Each structure stands twice: as structure tokens, then as C-alpha cells.
């Protein structure tokens, strides 16, 4: 698909939906956690890794996908999940640990599953690699067109699984894309300090696949690069390391003071830039942009209301779903 106004408006819409979701979650996260901070407290307990700043990645890549494509994501999954069309109400409820959540309160925010849109995530770093390659293999064996994508961080690209799986993908020429989200940090460790090469996309040559780096954190550029990688995968051209410069504006997780980030490494919010660009290029009027913003806020507020009203799972449900089969 060409980069039509319609498509770009939709990407912007996904970016603001994701931001509205994260902002609402951040607001709720602090309820019950002051003055004494503890992961366990409040209506949204546990660790929370928000996607603020990475919205163009989810919006740009997912806009290029087909229904049959499959995704594995990591501990920071919201922006990808939302852009992929994961049910927002059920996802909100899942973060709050409610019975109406995607996984009935079993998963929480790092473990988002929605088979309706072929979405899964894992909190173990680079653990999405192998499963995504397996999904790519399954699609090939099933003679279906789907491509598998794994979304992971720049930090995850130093994990053994990353390299083993890329070699497999290279050997087998699987329809696979590793979307490396370069936000320059893995917790408090900078990419410079942890990675032997400046760009993970350069590592592609070691695995017989294509590598592309997109430097802009701009949804248009990301969309076009994703289209190239997908076309390659669908035509039997094999895998791609698609590395995207992006941002991590809300810290590693809630509670991260980010004192380790020097002033000159402060990152820019991509969302207002994209909004201004679309207005400048006549794709959106100010009023239309404002309407998209307001609709996202309202949608998330409604999801939050539903989730807060929903019941918690009964304690006995902890024992359900350990195995598939008659009693599951």
C-alpha cells in the first residue's frame, strides 16, 4: 500500500491511542504507591514498562501487516499491541488484573496475548526470537502467506537467542523480521557501552539476511521500511533485521529516576512532530488532529472505567489453564 493520507491518519491515530493508554496507566500506577513506593501496591501493581516515545514503531510497522502475520513482543508491548488491534478494553482490564482481561488476570502487562490478531509477548529478554521464527516456519509449512515479526529492544540484540535464531532464519530463509527498537538503553546501560557495533542492522550480513536502519522515529519512514522487509519475506527473500531509532520517554519502568541519562542524551517526543508534519502537509487539519486526540482519550477513559468496574478473578481460578484439555 502506498503512503496514503488515510493510512497516515490511521498511523497517527494508533500513536495517540497508545500514548493515551500509557498516560492513563502511568496515572493509575501511582495510586497507592505514594508516599511509600512498592511494586505490590495500588490498583495497578507489578512492574510497568511504558511505551511513551516508541509509538511510531508500533504504528508504522503494524500498518504494513496483514491479518495472517504473527507477532511476538517483549516486556514493553503496549504500543505494538495497540497498533496491531489487540482489544483495548480487555488489555486495560488485564493490566488491572481483572477477570475481563485478555488473560483473565493471569498475565499482566508483560504477558499480552490476543490470538484474534496473532499477538503474544514475553518478559524474558529476546525470548520472542525463537517463537517468532517458529511461527514463520509454521506459516511456510501451512503454505500460508504470513510473516512473523518479533519486536525487541537494542539491549535484547546481545542475547544468545537473538544470534542463534538469526542464523536459523538465514539458513532456512524464513519469512521473519526482527524489529530492533533502538532506544539507546537497556535499563541503565547504554547501547554504546553494551554493543560492539553501532547498528544491529549491520549484523545482518553475518546471518545472510537484509539489514536496514531507520534513523528518524517517524511513522512514515518506518512504514516504508517495514513494507520493504515484508515484501522481501513474502517473496521468499528471507529475513530482515529492521532496526528503528526510537525513544524511551518514561524511563525503563515506573520508579526509574533516570539519573544515569546525561542531558545531551535526552530524547525527543515523536508524537507532536508527526502531528505537526501531517498538519503541515495537509493530511490533517488542526481540528481533525484534535478530534483524533480527543477520541483516543475518551476511548481509553471508557476502557479504564470498564476495567475498574470489572471483578477480580476468584482465587480458585489460579488453578485453571495449567494444561490444555478437558479441564482447561
Amino acid at each position, binding site marked *: 500500500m502506498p503512503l496514503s493520507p488515510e493510512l497516515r491518519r490511521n498511523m497517527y491515530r494508533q500513536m495517540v491511542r497508545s500514548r493515551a493508554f500509557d498516560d492513563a496507566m502511568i496515572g493509575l500506577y501511582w495510586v497507592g504507591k505514594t508516599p511509600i513506593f512498592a*511494586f505490590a501496591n495500588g490498583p495497578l501493581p*507489578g512492574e510497568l514498562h511504558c511505551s511513551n516515545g516508541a509509538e511510531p514503531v508500533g504504528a508504522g510497522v503494524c500498518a504494513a501487516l496483514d491479518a495472517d502475520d504473527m507477532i511476538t513482543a517483549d516486556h514493553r508491548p503496549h504500543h505494538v499491541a495497540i497498533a496491531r488491534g489487540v482489544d483495548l478494553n480487555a488489555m486495560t482490564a488485564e493490566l488491572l488484573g481483572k477477570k475481563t482481561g485478555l*488473560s483473565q488476570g493471569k498475565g499482566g502487562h508483560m504477558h499480552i496475548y490476543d490470538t484474534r490478531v496473532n499477538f503474544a509477548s514475553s*518478559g524474558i529478554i529476546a525470548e520472542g526470537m525463537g517463537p517468532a521464527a517458529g511461527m514463520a516456519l509454521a506459516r511456510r509449512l501451512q503454505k500460508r502467506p504470513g510473516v512473523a515479526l518479533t519486536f525487541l529492544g537494542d539491549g535484547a540484540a*546481545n*542475547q*544468545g537467542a537473538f544470534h542463534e535464531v538469526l542464523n536459523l532464519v538465514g539458513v532456512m530463509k524464513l519469512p521473519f523480521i526482527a524489529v530492533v527498537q533502538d532506544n539507546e538503553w537497556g535499563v541503565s546501560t547504554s547501547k554504546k557501552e*553494551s554493543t560492539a557495533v553501532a547498528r544491529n542492522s549491520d549484523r545482518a550480513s553475518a546471518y545472510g539476511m537484509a539489514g536496514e536502519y531507520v534513523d528518524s522515529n517517524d511513522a512514515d519512514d518506518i512504514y516504508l521500511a517495514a513494507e520493504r522487509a515484508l515484501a522481501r519475506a513474502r517473496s521468499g527473500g528471507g529475513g530482515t533485521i529492521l532496526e528503528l531509532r526510537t525513544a524511551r520517554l518514561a524511563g525503563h519502568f515506573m520508579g526509574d529516576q533516570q539519573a544515569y541519562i546525561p542531558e545531551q542524551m535526552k530524547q525527543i517526543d515523536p508524537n507532536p512532530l508527526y502531528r505537526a508534519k501531517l498538519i503541515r502537509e495537509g493530511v490533517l487539519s488542526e481540528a481533525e488532529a484534535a478530534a483524533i486526540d480527543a477520541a483516543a482519550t475518551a476511548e481509553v477513559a471508557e476502557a479504564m472505567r470498564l476495567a475498574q468496574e470489572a471483578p477480580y478473578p476468584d482465587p480458585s481460578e*489460579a488453578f485453571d489453564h495449567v494444561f490444555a484439555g478437558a479441564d482447561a
Partner: protein
Amino acid sequence: MSRILTMARAGREALDWEMERRDEIFVLGEDVYNFGGIFGTADGFGAKYGPERVINTPISETGFIGMAAGAAMAGMHPVIDLAYIDFIGVCYNVLLNTASKTHYMSAGQVKVPMTLMIGTGGGYNNAAQHSQCLHATVAHIPGVKVVYPSNAYDAKGMMHSALRDPNFVIYLTHKGTAGVGWMGTPLKTTLSEVPEEPYTVPFGKIAITREGSDITLIGLGMSVHECLKAADELAKDGISAQVVDLRSLAPLDRDGIFAAVKKTGRMIVTDEDYLSYGVSGEVIASVVERDPTVLRAAPVRICTPDIPIPFARSMEQAILPLAAKIADAARKMVK
């Protein structure tokens, strides 16, 4: 001089003392330079010892823990921070086949003195991949020492012991016991008077954390504190509960366990690790293999059931081996 410390500060003091005096000790792990590791055990060490001895690693656990084993074989003593035990899946081979077995396979030619610090446990809604205990999964490997302090005094003494041990030692700390900012107010029973001078706490010795005569409650890590809470409750009902802290899983103090259980004739083993194939069965075996007649009642286990840890508070709190469950079981047994 002594003062009240958290486990995290106490462990840090021992590591600092040893590092000041022994050049072969160095620290490595994710975010150790800026954050001092998950519990701040190396807090401030980056500035004090510099990047050569406080190595911030990439997220490459197989690589850097294997590297630590090699450095140990070559005469160093690495101290590794692996954050959460849920991540051992990524680097398990180094533990399972290298760090644990090299001394044996080389008939003592090659030593692997290294200390692997790992946080365990849940109870704070971090779901199935960030809440596990898995201590049995490492204690099962021959050739590994596994210690599990549950209070600040032991945290310091066992850290000194680990750093002076010529073997591979896994030093576990339950996240809820460490006394770190992100887990809220430190649990009172984890705090202790800690002497400023160095001292060691030997491995393979249980601690009687509370004296009692009617029933023996045995725990490790966080479950010691649940046992202590249960013992307080039971005291109100006139039941005198003895509380045992295992402290060390490998070696396991089977004599100490037997003697403690013999004293009361009743035992409940509590463990936040999964019920089956774990520490709780091993502890009971230590008693009944020797003399089942010391027991006046069948032993009871209060453990996390064999299910992944659910996220939602309503479900997670229900499956953890908390004090109320322990006290209920004790009342039934003593009646």
C-alpha cells in the same frame, strides 16, 4: 560496634570489605555500575572501584556468566548479579555443566570460586516470569553450594563465607526480604544488629529463629518470616511454635533439622518454591529416613502449588504460603 541494617546493606558491607582487600574479586552483571545490582549490593562500587572491577554487562547471561566461570578458573573470584532467578533459563548450562562440575571432572585441578547473587520470589504481582523461587532447581545440581540468608546478620556473614569459599556459591535473596526501595517498607524480622567487623556464618547449619515446644515450623527465605508471623498467631492460642530457618540448601543441615523436629514431634515445612520435587520433600525425607517415630503427626507442607504464578493479586495472594495458612495447619496438627 553494631547497627541495625537491611539485608541488602549488610551483604554490601561484606562485599565491600572483601573487595577492598582482595584484587581477585570483581563484580559483573546488568546495571551493576549505575544501580549496584538488583538489591544495591554493589551500590556505589562503580565510583569506588571503577569500571574494571564493576563491569556493566550486556543482556548476555550465557556469555557473561560463562565468562565469570572462566575468570574463576584463571584465578579470579567473580561476583555476579543475575537479578531475578527467572532468568537462569538463559544461562543454565553454565551452572549445570561448567561451574558446578569442573572441579570434580578435573579431580580438583581446576577450581571455580565464584559467587552468583540472585533474587527470588513473588508476592508483588510481577506474574509468572518474574516471581519464581526456583531454588530447588539450582540446589538439585551436584557441585553447587546454595545459601539463602533471610536476615541481615546472616546476609553479611554468608556473603563473607561465599567470597572466601573456593567453590561456586549461589547466594539467594528473596526480593521481599532484601529491604530495597521498590518493595516498600523493609520487613522488621529481616533487620538485625550487624557488627561492623567482618565475620562468617558457616554454610550447612540451620538457625533456630524462635524457640518453641509444640510444633516445628521450617522455612527458608521469605517463608521464615511467614512462619514467624504464624508463630505469633499461634502463641495467642497457647501453641508454642519453634521456627527453623534452613539458611543453606546445599549443604543441607539434616542433623540440625532432625534434632529440631525431634524436639517437638511435629513439623510443617513452608516453601515459596513449587511444591513438588522440591526442598519441602527433601526436608521431610531428612527426618523420616532417619527415624519416622519422632513424628507424632504426619508432616505437612505449605508451599506454592505446582502452577505458574498468576498476576492478579486475588489469585497470587491465595496461592502463596502465607502465615494464615501455616497457622491453620499448625492448629489442626496440634489439636
